[in-house]
């Protein structure tokens, strides 16, 4: 599903070079549930952006669903982001002037899906998040947990293969965060590949596979299928 081979990502800051990713190898199979943990600045977000085709590697190869995506042009990568990848951000990133339903429709709108079908699919995605009664509300009329669930509905409305979540509970209290994680896990249970970056070891520990990063490298990668939730 996802195969990173000798991936490097360097940033030039002045005349200094920061190795945000330093020779990363990572293979993730379809349907896996992976958490990525590590100290601040260890490269977690950089890794996730790279997997999500928002960023390009300085060196190395990246195969997504068997296709070498490192060589694709911007427009083709945009198409893959639209159809195959869903993002969930710490800051929700809902468009404030649009209603929940309109926010959820955005990826379909960009893809040119006709309004009637768009409406149907957005309604279904919101229903799956238990937010049918909030479809007409704007983000400032929703709680933090509801906002993040709208964002998840938006990320899943195109039925992507991979869901990438960067600190999805970072702006939420524990109760709301718990709810969001349960929603993500439910999606994973229905087959979507889920990768969650988090600081919270309680949340990271729930994943069946836990990747640990330090200074741009993967320092631990453990899978325990039958570990009890923390």
């Amino acid at each position, binding site marked *: 599903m996802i195969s990173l081979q000798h991936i490097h990502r360097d940033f030039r800051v002045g005349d200094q070079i920061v190795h945000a990713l330093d020779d990363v190898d990572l293979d993730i199979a379809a349907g896996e549930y992976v958490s990525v943990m590590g100290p601040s600045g260890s490269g977690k977000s950089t890794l996730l952006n790279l997997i999500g085709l*928002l960023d390009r590697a300085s060196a190395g190869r990246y195969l997504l669903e068997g296709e070498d995506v490192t060589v694709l042009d911007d427009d083709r990568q*945009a198409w893959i982001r*639209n159809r195959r990848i869903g*993002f969930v*951000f710490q800051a929700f990133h809902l468009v404030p002037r649009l209603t929940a339903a309109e926010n959820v429709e955005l990826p379909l709108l960009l893809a040119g899906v006709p309004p009637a079908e768009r409406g149907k699919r957005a309604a279904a995605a919101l229903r799956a998040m238990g937010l049918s009664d909030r479809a007409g509300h704007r983000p400032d009329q929703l709680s933090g947990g509801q906002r993040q669930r709208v964002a998840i509905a*938006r990320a899943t409305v195109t039925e992507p293969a991979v869901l990438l979540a960067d600190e999805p509970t970072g702006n939420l209290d524990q109760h709301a965060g718990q709810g969001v994680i349960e929603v993500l896990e439910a999606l994973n249970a229905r087959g979507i590949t889920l990768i969650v970056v988090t600081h919270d070891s309680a949340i990271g520990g729930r994943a069946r596979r836990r990747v640990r990063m330090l200074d741009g490298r993967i320092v631990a990668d453990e899978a325990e299928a039958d570990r009890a939730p923390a």
Partner: protein
Amino acid sequence: MRAADFVRFAAASLAARRLRSGLTALGIAVGIAAVVVLTSIGEGVHHFVLAEFTQFGTTLVAINPGRTTTHGMSVGVFGTERPLTIQDAESLERLSYVEAVVPFVQGNAEVKAGNRRRRTFVYGAGAQMPKAFRMAVQTGSFLPADDPTAPRALAVLGSKLRRELFGRGNPLGRRITVGGSRYRVIGVMAPKGVVLGFDLDDTVYIPAARALALFNRNSLFEIDVMYRPGVKVERVVEGIRRTLVARHGREDFTITTQEQMLDVLGSVLDVLTFAVGAIGGISLLVGAIGIVTIMTIAVNERTAEIGLLRALGARRVQVLALFLGEAVVLAALGGLAGLALGLGLAQGLHAAFPGLPVHTPWRYVLLAESLAVVIGLAAGVLPARRAARLDPVAALRAE
């Protein structure tokens, strides 16, 4: 992305900041209104002037002595040119398609009637002048078709001169002197008003031969020829040229057709309209700067949204088009408001000052609206390109 969704998205972004969008659109509206009002006045003057000219008819040809260069300077061929004479005018009457020929001399002289006197325009003309220039006689008759070389001393008054000299009294048959010579009044012209600064009512008409003597000239100012409608003007010009060259031995005169005059006049007036329109365009430029400013601010404020759109699969050109679209919608709406404002102002001006000619052709209205759209595009390019070039990861981090 579908076109309708695209417009709706752009419009919704603008609607979310109503006041700001409204003020920016107002900038364009003022500019478009200025262009519409100014070109309406320019175009109104255009129509007005052309109407003034064509009221004398359009099948007219003027012949002046001397060759005129394109710069309007009169140059004698080898330093000499033969005068245009009354016989020259007579010779043109023989051309089959000529309906009227008017020899023409103009000057200033003192006119006396009893103890009243007045300095006024004196037109030396021929019997066919009312026909050629569509002028009407109010009372009495115009100058008769005497022998043009030895006409009787008869005069016709303009309506204002008649009032000045005779008040309400009947002038017909009365004696006046023009520049010292005695004339008998046989008619009064219908009022014609001021045409291009000349008061055609403050005049006296006398036979051309007598005006030549009065002003001590040997050449007419001009011979005016009216030809039958439907005849090709080239044929008329050629006939006149051949007739006069046969009499003069060479082409030492200039033929100007009414068509040419209207063409020249029309293009001068077009330049005028364009110039005032361009002045209005300056305020449009200010409006355009407003759009650049507001779109630059919008791109800065919505950096995170741009990052999000890219993450959701928007291509760079889509982001470009979205922000360009906003600029264009802003300008187009401003343009429409400006058209309404401008047309209203133009009509208001016309109502307040009926003397001011105002005319707004639909062509200009469409042109002004297209101009607004083009301005929106031009003003939107810079901010929209900035938006499209943003790095999505960096954009998403902005808050």
